[in-house]
């Protein structure tokens, strides 16, 4: 129970402390919060493995009267993933957002916003109440918009405003759906909803909520806000935004469609989601190929990678949901979420470091940086391997599981999408790699210390190791999902 508390309240308190305390003390408070929350997340995951699903009914009131928090396997994995990325970002941001380099506003604003965001993420992952989720989402969006605006440039403000409008529209649509549900069923708890008979308005409610969540997840064609926002935020902020934020709304979608209202969905709608996902994969990749700025390439890559996740719907929902292959799709998607988070945060952190060294993130200016900073170049390459889904990496394992599920359930088109997406990813990630690797007259730049390069290396390495040693992940993941326990060899 302590873990729940620390996860939800800890970052909030930390955020407050970071606002209230002066510079150095603020960072110390943030560091302490990060450490405590990390410990709590890992501890909670351990408890989940040991005891199964953990439930906390606030004030002892069970739903529908009260609100319940629940940590199942997926939640535990998401929490640990968030904690890891946040810790890494925190370690990097200590230098990247020091007042003398990033300016006073960014240095001041980053810590509270980041901790606020963390609290919101934890809340979303642990909540099973639709309204609670709404609150979490709102908090999340606000903190995220703030982080974008920290960039301080005109472009960053424009991107932040665009993001804000999308986020608000999404929230409104979601809220409208929640209201319809409440009106029809009188409860917003996901577990209770899954046991109730469908109501006539459920279709519209689900459509509204989904539309809202899609806008927040930046699924094609609602992705337009994402690249400018992630491209112009300070790099540690971009890392958090790209690696974690879309996952929150996606997890809600996942629970909504597959757990809470599986009998309200249909093959056609599930397929539409996957088709949008496929379009995102292609479109995001092609757009990434067209970019000349590293951060934009990485941001468009997020658009594409989000697309992969949506392939899970026809593979684990609807008729295919009863097949043994469904658990493969589920496992694969979870794996993709985690490995993308690790790889993408590593990439943004590296991009930030290179920007600080080369003064720009245009590919032409990054020529030959691999010689100067071999460690971060290696990290970038490893992250690229994972994103392109090449073995051995978490990206490959996830993709392979999804492809296997696609073929096993007779929906091989989605396997082709994964395959083509991987190829396109290789193309857009190859360009920066080739530039980095090109031999030039040694650029007259000062390299960052190895200690600072090592953080992204660990993140990227983790996304690779995930492909080799993921026993732990797959031990936690099935907790609370009976069908996921059936293994398909």
């Amino acid at each position, binding site marked *: 129970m302590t873990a729940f508390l620390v996860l939800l309240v800890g970052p909030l308190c930390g955020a407050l402390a970071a606002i209230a305390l002066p510079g150095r003390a603020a960072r110390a408070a943030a560091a302490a919060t990060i450490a405590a929350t990390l410990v709590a997340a890992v501890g909670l995951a351990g408890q989940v493995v040991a005891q199964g699903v953990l439930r906390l009914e606030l004030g002892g009131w069970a739903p529908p009267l009260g609100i319940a928090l629940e940590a199942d396997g997926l939640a535990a994995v998401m929490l640990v993933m968030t904690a890891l990325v946040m810790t890494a970002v925190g370690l990097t941001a200590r230098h990247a957002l020091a007042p003398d380099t990033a300016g006073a506003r960014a240095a001041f604003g980053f810590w509270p916003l980041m901790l606020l965001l963390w609290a919101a993420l934890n809340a979303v992952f642990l909540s099973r109440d639709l309204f609670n989720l709404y609150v979490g989402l709102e908090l999340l969006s606000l903190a995220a918009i703030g982080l974008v605006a920290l960039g301080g440039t005109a472009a960053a403000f424009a991107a932040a405003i665009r993001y804000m409008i999308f986020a608000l529209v999404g929230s409104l649509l979601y809220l409208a759906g929640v209201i319809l549900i409440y009106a029809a069923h009188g409860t917003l708890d996901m577990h209770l909803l899954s046991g109730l008979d469908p109501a006539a308005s459920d279709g519209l409610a689900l459509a509204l909520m989904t539309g809202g969540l899609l806008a927040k997840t930046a699924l094609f064609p609602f992705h*337009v806000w994402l690249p400018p926002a992630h491209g112009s935020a300070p790099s540690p902020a971009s890392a958090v935004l790209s690696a974690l934020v879309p996952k929150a709304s996606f997890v809600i979608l996942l629970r909504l469609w597959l757990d809470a209202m599986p009998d309200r969905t249909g093959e056609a709608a599930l397929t539409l989601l996957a088709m949008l996902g496929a379009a995102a994969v292609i479109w995001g990749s*092609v757009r990434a190929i*067209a970019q000349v700025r590293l951060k934009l390439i990485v941001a468009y890559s997020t658009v594409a990678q989000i697309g992969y996740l949506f392939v899970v719907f026809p593979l684990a929902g609807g008729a295919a949901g009863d097949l043994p292959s469904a658990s493969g799709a589920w496992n694969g998607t979870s794996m993709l979420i985690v490995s993308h988070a690790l790889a993408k945060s590593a990439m943004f952190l590296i991009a930030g470091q290179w920007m600080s060294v080369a003064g720009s993130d245009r590919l032409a200016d990054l020529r030959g940086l691999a010689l100067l900073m071999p460690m971060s170049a290696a990290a970038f390459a490893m992250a690229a391997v994972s994103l392109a889904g090449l073995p051995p990496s978490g990206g490959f394992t996830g993709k392979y599981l999804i492809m296997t599920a696609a073929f096993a359930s007779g929906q091989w088109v989605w396997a082709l999408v994964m395959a083509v997406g991987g190829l396109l990813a290789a193309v857009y990630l190859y360009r920066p790699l080739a530039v980095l690797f090109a031999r030039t007259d040694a650029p007259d730049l000062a390299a960052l210390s190895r200690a600072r390069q090592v953080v992204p290396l660990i993140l990227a390495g983790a996304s690779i190791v995930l492909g080799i040693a993921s026993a732990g992940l797959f031990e936690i993941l099935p907790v609370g999902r009976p069908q996921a326990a059936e293994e398909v060899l």
Partner: protein
Amino acid sequence: MILWTGPLLPLAALVWPLLLAALTALPGLRAQGVRLLPIAPLPALWLALAGAEEVTTAPDLLLGVTLRLTEGGRLLLGMAAALWCLAGLAARPMAGKPNAALFAGFWLLTLTGNLGVFLARDIVTFYVAFAAVSLAAWFLIVHDRTPRALHAGSVYIVIALAGEVALLVGLILGADAAGSMVIAEVRAVLDPLPLALLVIGFGIKAGLVPLHVWLPLAHPAAPVPASAVLSGAIVKAGLFGLILFLPEGAFGPVLVGLGLAGAFGAALWGLTQANAKVVLAYSTISQMGLMIGLIGAGGAAREAVPYFALHHGFAKGALFLCVGVMLAAGARWQRLACLTVAGIVAASVAGFPLTGGALAKAAVKDGLPEIAVTVLSLTSVTTSLILIWFLVTLCGPEGSGAASRWTPRLMVPALAGVLALAVPWGLWPVWSDHEAAYLLTPATMWDALWPVVAALPFALARLLWHRKSRPLRDILRDIGRWRPGSTGLSEGFAPAAWAARGEALSAALLGATGRLEGALIRWRVSGLLIPVVVLAIFALLA
């Protein structure tokens, strides 16, 4: 691991030269390696004299080496060993000259191959030995590195390789049909196609018309000792191949026809040449043609071919060595002495009564019909003719003169000549049904004598009819010079033009996506898209 089974001597006969070859590679011995050459064929000579009944195997070598001495093989092995030994003696003056070690090494390799051909019992060993003798001989041919030698080498290697390939394919076809690697079993089941391939492969080596074109280029180009073994011993490898693999009567008419064409044609064409070694080379083609014709004729004549080849090997070796000795001769008496030796050996080749050559011809005549005997006698006319012409050309160029220790040098061809004259006498009881007295009857003597006499007027006519000698026929010069140029074949999937076009295309496509993205980002569009998607989901859920 069993190193070998059966008698060791056949294996030793092949390994010993290779060991010597390894020795010549040692830095200390490089310059003097040539001095080892005469002792290299000694185990083989011993084997030929002692004989060996049983099969020798070395199961781990190559694909399992098996060796066996056949009757004909023993004869040719002995001849080759003795000739290589003598030629090795003749090569001693090369010691200390540039590239002598290379020459010695490949000499020994060629020797091993040559001996192996006569010993092999299975096709793989045979093929390896044959390839060794064919290809290693290339180094002997190009040794002088004159443009002429290098050109001859190019022509030789192209044709020899083609022969190797034909041989390999033929042998594989045969081995598959027989389900065995043993030559005797393969020979029993050969189809026309593999047979034809084998005839081509062996025919090239044996100088079968029209596959002989390399021979008049290559044999004269080599240093004299090498020419001697090329023309005396190495061509016999091809001949022996034909004897080994061709079943009785296979391709009989073809072989007889081509063989006789060679026997007459080459001898007459040789008359147009002025270089003694070239003339000898044509004589070799002529004699080999005769032997191939006899193989085609079959019967007892075919049986006696090894006996015939034995004589020819010694004699032709002696003649080539004489050329070398003549070049080294300074004084008039030396030239005369050399000419005498050459004359006696030439008479033997022409079949002058009581010579080894006469015995050889008498032995093969036995199984032949009347008409064939007449043709055989006619070939003796042309043989006599070309050999008389050889003696004339031998006298032609003045030598470098006054080599030291000239007399021992002359002893080498003289010894070979003695072997050519004498050994057939010794072996006559084994290879002929007739008593030795048959050879002394006037009829036999006359049969041997008249072709030589008949050749004299023609020879006189040729001497009087002086004409500038024709250049070497060399239809393969083009092949030797052929250099594959660019034929405009494209490279894989990434030619530059395609790449440029592809880049332009992808740039255009990317530009288009950029414009579309610009449209999506407008509020009007995205404002519309959100409700559209929501409605679509709703419609699909309902």
